């Protein structure tokens, strides 16, 4: 159970003038500006949930996840994990969380993967039998054992992320934070990662909180999404509900035999190039069948397909790039 209560985070950004003059001036008087990275964020996460944090770059996702995992101290507000404040009881609370940052590793670059695991085994006081057991389970999901004797610096990104995922699970945390875990991964490695998240969630009821720019991650893993922009909570809820609420339309893609694309009063022709046209229509206004029938009366249709509004539409709306 994670309770986030009214957290804010502001940074002091030092303003530096341009060029040599600005640098000199900066030595005498430093003007700093307060930047609010996260503004009054509150939400609860139940045990066993998989929650996806999405938002554009600089929206405050990473700042939020870093506050939740004890790395950054909120300017105000509090974060309770299993009832305890992570900033007051850091050492106790982190015993119960695992953290993986896609772009940063907690593994020792110079040594074999097994050595990093051994250090963690001692840091978290995991007994040998329990360690072996966890390793066996992880081996079934991620095939980690063949990598144990490989130096981390010689690993591919996919292998290194596997190593980091196992490292974060060795002490069997009840909460797992993943900050952009799939970034830069190839299809196979992404598949492994998603399989891993699903399995630890199902088998161990691990709560998973992840940030991502990959819509596939969200669609395949998350029951719930939290959309953040400019440090504020924009949406929080079930993926399908949000789609139905803020993007309750479908898109009809029609390929005609010639370049003329007829319009229709109950839908919007928002894309037309050569002989392909895309119509956006509300489910309550017209059915797909009726629309196709009406269009085919005006021009000869070669092919049609229907696209549901999806996560990318949600994101575009939420990010303000698409006005309704």
């Amino acid at each position: 159970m994670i309770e986030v209560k009214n957290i804010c985070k502001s940074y002091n950004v030092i303003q530096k003038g341009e060029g040599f003059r600005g640098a000199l001036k900066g030595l005498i008087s430093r003007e700093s500006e307060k930047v609010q990275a996260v503004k009054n964020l509150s939400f609860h996460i139940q045990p066993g949930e998989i929650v996806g944090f999405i938002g554009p770059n600089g929206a405050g996702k990473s700042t939020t996840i870093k506050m939740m995992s004890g790395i950054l101290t909120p300017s105000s507000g509090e974060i309770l994990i299993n009832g305890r404040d992570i900033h007051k009881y850091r050492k106790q609370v982190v015993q119960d969380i695992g953290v993986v940052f896609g772009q940063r590793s907690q593994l020792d670059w110079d040594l074999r993967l097994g050595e990093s695991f051994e250090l963690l085994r001692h840091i978290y006081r995991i007994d040998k039998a329990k360690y072996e057991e966890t390793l066996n389970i992880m081996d079934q999901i991620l095939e980690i054992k063949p990598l144990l004797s490989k130096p981390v610096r010689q690993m591919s990104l996919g292998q290194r992320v596997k190593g980091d995922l196992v490292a974060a699970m060795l002490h069997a945390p009840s909460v797992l934070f993943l900050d952009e875990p799939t970034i830069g991964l190839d299809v196979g490695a992404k598949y492994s990662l998603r399989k891993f998240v699903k399995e630890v969630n199902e088998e161990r009821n691990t709560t998973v909180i992840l940030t991502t720019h990959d819509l596939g991650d969200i669609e395949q893993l998350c029951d719930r999404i939290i959309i953040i922009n400019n440090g504020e909570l924009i949406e929080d809820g079930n993926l399908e509900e949000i789609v139905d609420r803020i993007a309750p339309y479908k898109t009809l893609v029609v390929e005609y035999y010639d370049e003329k694309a007829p319009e229709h009063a109950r839908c919007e022709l928002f894309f037309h190039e050569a002989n392909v046209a895309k119509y956006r229509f509300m489910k309550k206004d017209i059915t797909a069948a009726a629309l196709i029938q009406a269009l085919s009366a005006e021009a000869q249709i070669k092919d049609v397909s229907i696209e549901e509004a999806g996560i990318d539409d949600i994101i575009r709306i939420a990010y303000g790039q698409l006005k309704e």
Partner: protein
Amino acid sequence: MKGIAGTIFHYIDVTFVNIRMALLRVVEYPSNIIGWLLSNPVQFLVGFATIQFAVSEFGDINGWNYGQLAFLYGLAVLSHALSMIFFVQGWFMGNYVIHGEFDRYLTRPMSVLYQFFFTNINIIGVTDLIPGLCVFLYGCHKVGFHWSIGNVFMIFVLLTGATLIRGGIYIILGTTTFWTRSNNDFAQYTQEIFDKTTMYPLSMYPEGVQFVLTYLIPIGWVTFYPVSNMLGLSNDYLQTSAAVWLTLLIGILVMVLAALFFRLGLRNYESAGN
């Protein structure tokens, strides 16, 4: 195991793993240690040769004869070496701050300061121990040091205190980078100042400097006061018979202050953007 004993056992246990990993790293890149093994002893032995020259020219330095100076110099290098092994990372804290390297320590259930120093324990610092030990043993021989258990114990107390004073000062310097967020490298001038003030009798400096290094920045307590006390040398600035124990006490005090300051700094930690 629970309680304080359990916690101490846990830290010792993890320390062994950290030392093992550091040794493995040395094995992984052996050329590294060979380079230091050559350059470090040379640096300090040349430094000591300079003292020998000065003494042969002028007879003594501020009432310190050759053997006493070797004793002092040796302990200064030994405490330097110990501080290099355990606390050298303090000099480069800015680098860790800027690159967000504290993230991983903050998400693990141990002291951040402990993890910072011991996961980066600098085994290479051992190469500094060699010249220190050579010069110190030579000094012991010259001053007729009596190798009783009590005296050896006092040397141990002195080195512990001296290492803590140095380490605490490195931490305090390094911690400032949480606010400046700059990649300051404190190595060069810190070592310069410590070398100049711990390897030679402090009494050769003007009184103002002695005051500062006695009361404000306790560098005088690293070697000068405890060694003066052990060798029965008087100095006209400060006399105490408990100087060795004071060194330990001041070491602990500086370390506690440094740890508190570090905690304050860590609250300002901003990690690093992706």
